[in-house]
């Protein structure tokens, strides 16, 4: 038990950012506690890609097999079960991502070990302690894991700054016996549809959330976006309801935006939404709930009913523009 293991997440020939974030966290923890860091990369034809991890970990376990050409959790799970049993890492870090959530819980079940998902901070001393958002981000929970063996944690995206500690990375190839093809088969990727409006390149975004209350209120927000010379975007429930098309959704399962202005109207600020807009240059949020988590990422906040603000704001913006 002298290592912290990180599962490398990669897709379509790219190592995903979360991998470098997890490795950064693993190296930070390892330095303090004298552990070594081990990255585990599973796939097929990924040797070149693995080279990009040089310096980021003490060891890199490379597991390649035709059956692992695409991410399918049960094949990955078999490999990881073996690795965890054999190496007994203190922590196994997996991304709090779509792949991570497909894999980590059933892996923890089959190994019968603890799992905590969506961690935004991790400490490792004698014990393991994590911080994670609960109740839609309104509160944080400090959670202690009382277990002497391997603990699986999924790390939230975008909460750790990656760095390359310049380690001497030893690459170890590991062969696997995957056995029967699984009861789950990857068929194909489905690419997002061509966007009509590209919100990710807009300088000014007005985004509406469930607080907009009704489809009939959308034009009002659109008018504000136009007055500001920007585009209208939204949180997920607005797309789920069919009030705006999918290409307007901001967040982990939508688009990532970095405009000069992000004006959030009636959006609570769940972490999946924040992941898509937190790097905006200026964030102004209007929400009638003073404790809405969006105020933790916004630069300016307005605690008000959005319907009392929007009409006046449209007028003032028009005045300002008209006036030169």
């Amino acid at each position: 038990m002298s290592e912290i293991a990180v599962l490398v997440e990669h897709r379509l020939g790219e190592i995903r950012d979360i991998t470098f974030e997890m490795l950064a966290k693993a190296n930070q923890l390892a330095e303090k506690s004298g552990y070594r860091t081990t990255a585990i990369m599973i796939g097929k034809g990924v040797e070149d890609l693995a080279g990009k991890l040089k310096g980021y970990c003490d060891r890199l376990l490379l597991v390649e097999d035709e059956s692992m050409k695409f991410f399918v959790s049960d094949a990955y799970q078999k490999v990881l079960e073996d690795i965890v049993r054999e190496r007994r890492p203190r922590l196994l870090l997996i991304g709090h991502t779509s792949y991570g959530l497909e894999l980590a819980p059933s892996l923890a079940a089959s190994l019968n070990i603890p799992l905590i998902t969506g961690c935004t901070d991790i400490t490792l001393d004698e014990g393991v302690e994590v911080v994670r958002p609960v109740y839609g981000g309104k509160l944080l929970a400090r959670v202690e894991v009382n277990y002497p063996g391997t603990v699986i944690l999924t790390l939230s995206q975008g909460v750790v700054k990656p760095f390359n500690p310049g380690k001497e990375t030893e690459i170890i190839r590991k062969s696997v016996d995957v056995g029967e093809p699984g009861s789950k088969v990857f068929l194909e990727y489905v690419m997002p549809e061509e966007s009509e409006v590209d919100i990710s390149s807009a300088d000014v975004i007005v985004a509406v959330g469930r607080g907009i209350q009704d489809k009939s209120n959308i034009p009002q927000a659109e008018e504000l976006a136009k007055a500001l010379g920007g585009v209208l975007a939204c949180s997920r429930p607005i797309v789920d309801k069919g009030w705006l098309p999918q290409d307007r959704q901001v967040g982990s399962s939508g688009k990532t935006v970095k405009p000069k202005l992000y004006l959030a109207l009636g959006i609570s600020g769940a972490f999946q939404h924040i992941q898509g807009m937190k790097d905006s240059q200026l964030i102004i949020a209007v929400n009638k709930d003073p404790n809405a988590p969006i105020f933790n990422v916004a630069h300016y906040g307005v605690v008000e009913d959005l319907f009392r603000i929007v009409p006046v704001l449209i007028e003032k913006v028009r005045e300002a523009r008209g006036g030169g």
Partner: protein
Amino acid sequence: MDIVVCVKHVPQVSEAEVRVTSDGRDIDRSGLVFDINEWDDYALEEALRIREERGGTVTVITVGGEESDETLRKCLAKGADNAVRITDPRINLWNPMVVARVLAAAISKLQYDLILAGAQSSDDGYGAVGPALAGFLGIPHATIVKKVELRDGSVLVQRELEGGLEERLKIKLPALLSIQTGINEPRYVSIMGVRRAMRRPIKTMSLDELGLSPSEIEDESSWIMVKELYAPPVERRAEIIEGNPEEIASKIVEILKSRGIL
């Protein structure tokens, strides 16, 4: 097709004030409105639609206290056939592996072709109980599912990755799917449905009846302890713009001018 849907009774916090109890480890439930977890409502709807098309039964199941009956009744009112609740004070609801193990023990006693769960609970936000349950039952699963097409003995699913990208998988039945919002449009409860549901039984089960060892569950429960719940630190709180709507709008315009946006 017999379908089991895992549902959770959760507080609606998006517009409410969430206060922490004096020991700092729980929230003050008084004054909060509870309802079915949003994702589970979509899962139930998907189950009801499949049953309407192919016949079979829909059983809803929850691990929780008596207050969860409200959510189970709502599911019955929407058209679920059976409702099961498992209660025991030794079950730590903050440990997703324990909840999944208890659900697995209960569901293994039922007849099922398909199990549906929500992609996540709005309170703990783990996104873990569904796939962990599949792990304990030893059946295949897919998470964050946006589209379900049943075939003979298998199911084709479309699941969300990131950034609008999705993937299609084929999975053998019986399987567990965790359902994402937007997959359908959940129905409302009818008055008739509510009346009917009032008289329907809710089956409760104890750990003993499930053949689970209470001391093991207690042990596993203690793996995970919430030490403290607290509001996010204030350093990063936004500067609040005060005033009446006129004043607020003027200040916003000033800020935008000073940043060269207007």
